[in-house]
């Protein structure tokens, strides 16, 4: 009967969808290991600790430097913004900010890089780790703010009321009571933001510059792993491609090391 046939085809479609997307995704993860692991094994620890030839230490250092700096700039700002939106949800700004946050979550990150290039790189006359960090901070902002706001809002009212009843001022209540209870959610947001920016390439192209160096100060062009991979892929040498796979594996491991614990922690809540 046609009706039963439609039903069977439907189940087939569901299975086909699952396979159609899970297969490439699994293959991507597999490929990174399959092509990257031999490179790591081949070159050993040197891969991580040396600069040229063939090592990615500068890029590694650059990533670490810029992610740290961007967290330094971005996290406190984002948390404060998140607190504001949670504490004054009816103000005009909050009502504007909430949808704006969601919009910025998926905004083209290359535009962020372009923006920071205009306001920082051109005046400074050079690519720099500073510019890169600021670009990453902007990308991180919506994530940390969203999670902070949600975490603050989900603290049960009676705890806050109890604190106010004891005569504590607003700032005190927020920082000593509400934030402590929202700690987990805020931390989750931070880590998700960090995981995200550690893997970003586009914001860095025009800010930190495409370079393998990570020599000096924060006002010099600085490499980062994603940028480095991007550069290596476009070179014609097979040797460079190998390094690219190895670096991709390192990047994926870094990402998973931050993201996986956070995500698994979210399961229990």
């Amino acid at each position, binding site marked *: 009967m046609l009706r039963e046939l439609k039903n069977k085809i439907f189940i087939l479609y569901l299975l086909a969808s699952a396979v159609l*997307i899970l297969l490439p*995704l699994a293959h991507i993860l597999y*490929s990174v290991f399959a092509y990257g692991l031999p490179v790591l094994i081949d070159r050993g620890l040197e891969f991580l600790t040396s600069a040229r030839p063939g090592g990615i230490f500068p890029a590694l250092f650059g990533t670490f430097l810029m992610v740290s700096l961007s967290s330094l700039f971005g996290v406190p700002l984002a948390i404060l913004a998140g607190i504001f939106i949670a504490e004054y949800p009816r103000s005009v700004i909050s009502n504007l*900010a909430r949808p704006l946050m969601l919009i910025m979550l998926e*905004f*083209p990150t290359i*535009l962020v890089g372009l923006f920071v290039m205009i306001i920082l790189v051109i005046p400074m006359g050079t690519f720099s780790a500073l510019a890169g960090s600021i670009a990453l901070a902007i990308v991180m902002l919506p994530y940390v703010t969203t999670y902070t706001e949600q975490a603050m809002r989900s603290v049960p009212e009676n705890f806050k009321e109890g604190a106010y009843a004891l005569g504590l001022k*607003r700032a005190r209540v927020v920082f000593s009571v509400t934030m402590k209870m929202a700690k987990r959610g805020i931390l989750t947001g931070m880590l998700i933001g960090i995981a995200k920016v550690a893997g970003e390439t586009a914001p860095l192209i025009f800010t930190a510059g495409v370079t393998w160096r990570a020599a000096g100060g924060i006002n010099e062009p600085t490499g980062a792993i994603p940028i480095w991979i991007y550069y290596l892929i476009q070179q014609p040498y097979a040797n460079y491609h190998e390094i690219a796979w190895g670096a991709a594996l390192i990047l994926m491991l870094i990402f998973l090391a931050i993201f996986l614990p956070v*995500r698994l922690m979210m399961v229990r809540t």
Partner: protein
Amino acid sequence: MDRFKIFLLPSVYLAFGILFLMLITFALNSLPIFEREGIAIYTTNIWRAAEEPENEFYGILAAIYGTIYTSIIAIVIALPVSIGLAIFVIDVAPKKFRELLVILTDIMAGLPTIIYGIWGVFILAPIISKIMIFLYENFSFFPLFSYRNPTGFSFLTAGILLAIMVTPFATALIREAYAAIPQVYREVAHSLALTRYEVTKLLLGYIKPAIVAGTLLAFGRAVGETVAVSLVVGNSFNIHPSFFAPGYTISSLIANQFGNAFAYSYMPYALFAAGLALFFIGLIVNVTGVVMLRRWKYA
């Protein structure tokens, strides 16, 4: 206004003023090219860099075309797959696998895009290239297949890669909405003697706004993606209907051309104008998607 609020206010303004600052910055920095070419920057397909500033002329129509073309391919593939996967995870997959599938999807949604890029260049493009050559040699009368010497770096490859990147995100949104449908409606639908297919069709109608919003947001993501696309789209100024033709997207144009832009007088401004276009496309699509989602959630 209490002091606490005043203390917090600057951070909020800073955090969200950035979007407006961006708009203004791009607009101001595009002025020179608007003054020079007017709307032709968006409506023509020319890219003429030259030593003498008078001879420069830029039009990013090809990039706009490519952005829309690749994103549409991405959505056409991603939408049915996202919906199918969402239903699969909730209705078909055994309970123990559900959390695993969800976590896997979330990982892929957050995975650094350069990893998609490296896989796209070294693995996806060669496979597509073989398929393209076969299709071209046998079916080149079909306009979508008609491009000589397909290399594997094309609109189609970019579209497929984007589809793979965008699906985890879209499916998460649809899945959450589908799972949140009150259990009563599922029971009622079954009690009306409907097959699983019919029940699902009915329930999908219930979450239609979420599906539309998810599509828009996914489209917004596809539109803004840079590195993965620029590695497989071919990076050439080409307006051609064929899947197999190489082309440009706005984001890959910016990424690709900025290296040598400062050697010329007007190219940087042209690229800022491209950025402005991308800004508006991204803004409109994301705003519509977010507004739809919120209005539906609070209905």
